[in-house]
């Protein structure tokens, strides 16, 4: 008996799986510890595989797997479709920040002056003219856009 790699391993494996042993191969197996061990292992694993495949416990339902995959796929498609919007929002945020930085020194006086002169008792149709400064409208709009962009970006990250 020998315990080392044997050149008959492939033939012995095939025979152990199928159960078709030629007399020569059987004789070899009986005299070769490697092939005897191989036969034992292959036959044992084949029997074990059959046992496990026949286990009574039902398999997990494939429907939820399919639905989860489809859902994930749709989420990716949605993200791809809204990518341009997110970029516009980022650009708006960048513009708002840039304007804020560029005009910060003089802007505060302008904003505080505009708000101090604001008459809150006036009717709504007159409001844009009362607010007065187009620059202020632009700044407020950009700030709102910027805040929206921040909100969207945060929500996108959470998802």
């Amino acid at each position, binding site marked *: 008996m020998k315990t080392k*790699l044997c050149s008959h391993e492939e033939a012995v494996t095939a025979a152990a799986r199928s159960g078709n042993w030629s007399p020569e191969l059987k004789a070899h197996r009986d005299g070769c510890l490697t092939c005897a061990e*191989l036969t034992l292992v292959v036959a*044992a694993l084949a029997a074990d595989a059959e*046992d496990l495949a026949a286990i009574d416990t039902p*398999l997990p339902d494939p429907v939820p797997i399919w639905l989860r995959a489809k859902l994930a796929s749709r989420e990716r498609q949605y993200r791809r479709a809204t990518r341009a919007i997110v970029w516009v929002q980022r650009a708006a945020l960048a513009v708002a920040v840039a304007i804020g930085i560029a005009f910060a020194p003089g802007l505060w006086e302008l904003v505080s002056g505009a708000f101090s002169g604001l008459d809150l008792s006036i009717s709504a149709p007159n409001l844009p003219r009362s607010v007065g400064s187009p620059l202020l409208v632009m700044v407020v709009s950009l700030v709102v856009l910027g805040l929206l962009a921040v909100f969207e970006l945060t929500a996108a990250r959470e998802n």
Partner: protein
Amino acid sequence: MIPMALTLPRTQGLALPGRAVTMDEEAFRHLYDRTARPLRAYLMRSCGDLALADDLLQEAYLRMLRSGFEGEDDDHRKNYLYRIATNLLRDHFRRKRPESDEVPERDESPGHDQAIHMRSDVGGAMAELAPRDRQMLWLAYVEGASHHEIAKALGLRTASIRSMLFRARQRLAKQLQARGLRPELEVS
């Protein structure tokens, strides 16, 4: 049971996030019906836990669908699934024991299916081996994978597989013999 050769998938990456599901539901069901039981057997014998095997099984199919992998036929997809499952097992054992690849401790929690370990002498013997040995032996002698395919699935060098498989086989034979099975006896 006639083992099937594990032809390697032709795509390089296993996980390809961001791809759309390309398989239709009927094709998926067909693949699932055909492959889920043997794949669960592989996972179960590799990790020794039915609940975990079922989790990994679902994750393997989910990853395959999400990868957008189409494959040439069911065999091709099946092989891809085994590679994903092997990677999932490897991740599982890494998380469990970051510094070693030793035999995982048996889970005594209520959800653990003790019957899996004790089901047969073979199950008990396999449970004494290292996860990699179990995977290697299963892929080689149940799934009929070539050395090259085993090496790909386990992330090893092809040249090492023959000797590693030989040693793993010796260890399993020793465990089987310790349980009363001898090389001279064929398990029916």
